[in-house]
């Protein structure tokens, strides 16, 4: 890194005084920032807040389900609780978590740019997210919504007497936050790569985030218009989805899932990108099959748009439509499988260490495999007829969302924490939390596969007594899982003040983001880097030394 003549040489293990965090301390400098790194922090705070809100609702659900009777809360309340758990977790946590936090922070650094293409639109994205969040909070506080996060008609348009309109509008606004983020990423990757950074030299996190962004901009407008139609129907009694007025309730399902299936790829692809960064770093070698992993992201994005009606196998679609969508659902599994095989193969003849990010990556590979394979079971229509709308589906999607997306996020958060904050987190506590998460997660959700196959339907406030034992196991697991999520809150915050200083590249990782200070200066690089090397050039990067003792400045 070239150094300007006027500034003194800064040793690698000292935090530069002027970085993006210290560049202005006023509230205004944060709330009106256009710095992608600060916006990422704003998202980090708000998305985490929603995560714990969604987690609180989850806790209420699991507590109610300890007993077969509905004895903790009324049925209507329970219906609202699971609805709001779903809406908060899907729209306010899972969709933005990796792109808006890690993507926002890391993407411009990784491509060697000073910022995203449209910094002000980036800030607008965050404000849209907040506006949607505030509107949804208001919806929750003024009675909530009880339609399920899937808003099926005609229940949501004609029968529910809860705040469907506010919820629908909140999702509409959150959708635009997502669209603008995706738009920003695509333009940045196309137009602002550093000189020498060709597509085949791009880190796989960029490939994944790029593919995610394609899905965001193509899919999200459809949920936007669908929610507009639901709101319009509810307000004006239109009849687009109401059979009493000539409409078709299944049309809603098609329109809803046309977005909501690709949405799950919006959630998982960035996390897969994170794993593609972590595994090479802690195995000290290039990802096996870089080209295949890169293209598999694009394949997942494309095929992800072709499978939506596998959510409608028993909804009343024709036999032949069901067969086509079943077949396509198998096809979309292939690129995901390719990634899993390639990550595993990367371990072969590597030089592997077990830092926390790597532990989360291992967890991801195992749990995503289970989640993905149970998805294959659901694609098999003969099985789906039995297990759809049961706890089997709930277990499946929690395996891929929590075992996949969330583990990838936590891995990435720990991996890039030194870059974001300039500090290292305490490794012992981090490993312990990862263990709590892994054990707690499996105990929570594995029993639900069995519950589902035995026949316990989803969204049930009360259930027949024979299902109790498995439910109790699941709730026990959830309490362990909760600890696993609370611990990082504590030790990460602790590390901001007491963690050892990290230096530019504590992991010895490849990638342009590691070639600038930790935390980076506001404009990322003192000089625009010129890339003359391939991605993941771990043969050229020395193993990281042990961290030196921090030197106060």
């Amino acid at each position, binding site marked *: 890194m070239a150094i300007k003549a006027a500034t003194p040489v800064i040793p690698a293990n000292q935090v530069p005084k002027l970085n993006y965090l210290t560049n202005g301390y006023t509230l205004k400098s944060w709330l009106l920032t256009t710095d992608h790194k600060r916006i990422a922090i704003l998202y980090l705070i708000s998305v985490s807040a929603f995560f714990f809100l969604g987690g609180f609702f989850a806790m209420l659900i699991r507590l109610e389900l300890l007993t077969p009777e509905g004895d903790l809360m009324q049925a209507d309340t329970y219906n609202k609780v699971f609805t709001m758990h779903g809406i908060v977790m899907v729209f306010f946590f899972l969709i933005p978590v990796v792109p808006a936090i890690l993507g926002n922070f890391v993407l411009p650094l990784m491509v060697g*740019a*000073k*910022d*995203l*293409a*449209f*910094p002000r*639109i980036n800030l607008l994205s965050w404000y849209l997210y907040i506006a949607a969040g505030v509107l949804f909070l208001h919806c929750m506080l003024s009675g909530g919504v009880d339609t399920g996060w899937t808003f099926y008609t005609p229940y949501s348009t004609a029968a529910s007497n809860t705040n469907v309109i506010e919820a629908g509008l909140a999702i509409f606004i959150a959708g635009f936050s997502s*669209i603008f983020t995706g*738009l*920003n990423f*695509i*333009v*940045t990757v*196309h*137009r*602002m790569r550093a000189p020498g950074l060709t597509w085949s030299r791009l880190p796989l996190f960029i490939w994944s985030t790029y593919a995610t962004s394609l899905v965001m*901009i*193509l*899919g*999200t*407008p*459809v949920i*936007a*218009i*669908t929610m*507009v*139609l639901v709101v*319009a129907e509810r307000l*004006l*009694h*239109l*009849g*687009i989805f109401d059979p009493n*007025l*000539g*409409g*078709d309730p299944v*049309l809603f399902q098609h*329109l809803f899932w*046309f977005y909501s299936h690709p949405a799950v790829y919006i959630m998982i692809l960035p996390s897969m990108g994170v794993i593609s960064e972590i595994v090479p770093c802690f195995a000290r070698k290039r990802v096996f099959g870089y080209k295949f992993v890169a293209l598999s992201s694009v394949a997942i994005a494309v095929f992800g748009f072709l499978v939506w009606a596998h959510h409608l196998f028993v909804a009343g679609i024709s036999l032949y439509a069901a067969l086509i969508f079943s077949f396509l659902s198998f096809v979309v599994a292939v690129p995901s499988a390719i990634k899993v095989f390639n990550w595993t193969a990367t371990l072969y003849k590597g030089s592997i260490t077990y830092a926390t990010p790597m532990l989360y990556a291992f967890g991801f590979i195992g749990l995503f495999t289970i989640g993905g394979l149970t998805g294959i079971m659901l694609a098999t229509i003969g099985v789906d007829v039995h297990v759809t709308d049961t706890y089997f589906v709930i277990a499946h999607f929690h395996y891929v969302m929590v075992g996949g997306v969330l583990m990838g996020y936590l891995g990435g958060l720990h991996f890039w924490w030194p870059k974001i904050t300039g500090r290292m987190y305490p490794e012992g506590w981090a490993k312990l939390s990862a263990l709590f998460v892994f054990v707690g997660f499996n105990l929570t959700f594995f029993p639900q596969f069995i519950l589902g196959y035995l026949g316990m339907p989803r969204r049930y406030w009360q259930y027949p007594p024979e299902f109790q034992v498995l439910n109790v196991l699941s709730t026990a697991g959830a309490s362990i899982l909760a600890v696993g999520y609370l611990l990082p809150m504590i030790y990460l915050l602790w590390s901001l003040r007491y963690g050892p200083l990290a230096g530019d590249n504590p992991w010895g990782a490849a990638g342009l983001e590691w070639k600038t200070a930790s935390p980076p200066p506001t*404009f990322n690089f003192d000089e*625009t880097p010129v890339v003359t090397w391939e991605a993941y050039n771990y043969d050229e990067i020395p193993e990281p030394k042990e961290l030196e003792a921090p030197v106060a400045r």
Partner: protein
Amino acid sequence: MTADHEAHNPALLHHFADAQQQKNAASLGMWLFLVTEIMFFGGMFCAYLIYRLAYFNAFAAGSQQLNIWMGGINTAVLIVSSVTVVLAVKAAEAGKRKLLTGYLVVTVLLGMTFLVIKGFEYAEKFEKHHVPGSTFNFTEKFDDNGKQIDVNPKEAELFFSLYFVMTGMHALHMVIGCGLFSTLAVLAWKGHFTANYFTPIENGGLYWHLVDIIWIYLFPLLYLISRHT
């Protein structure tokens, strides 16, 4: 273009390497946004197509009740406005401030003309009780080459629901377009754009063209089902 010149170009944002990169980025961004708009309207077009296939007679009857003169004039108005947009971009390219402002203002006026005519159309719908909801009352028939065919009023109501949602959403985009172009006109008058920098005019023009194209699809689909002279 020298580095000095670019450094002094007030429109160059600091995170871009040069003006060309900024222009390319802005252009790509606007095209991507247009794609999202197409997907957005696409949902409604999808619903429309499905119901039209299912309830053709009712849709035809409803369509025949729309005011084809107002719709036709509006189509012409929008096409002319797209021409003025193109001319505005050319004027910007040539650095002609007053001409540019003039074309932008005319575009806004044409857009407002569209909205006014639309307002009259909607008013006519109210008078004929063709607005979905409690006041809806549809007794007209589908004129199939002289043969009068009864239709289910519920299906006709569905046609009008889609009509209002689709044209309403389009009109909302027109309002935004008029606001956008008014802003551009003010900025143009103040000399904000030069022959070297008129990206907002180009991108605003792209937006206007898209809204125009959406109408070009809406008009035949809604107004011209089974029309005969």
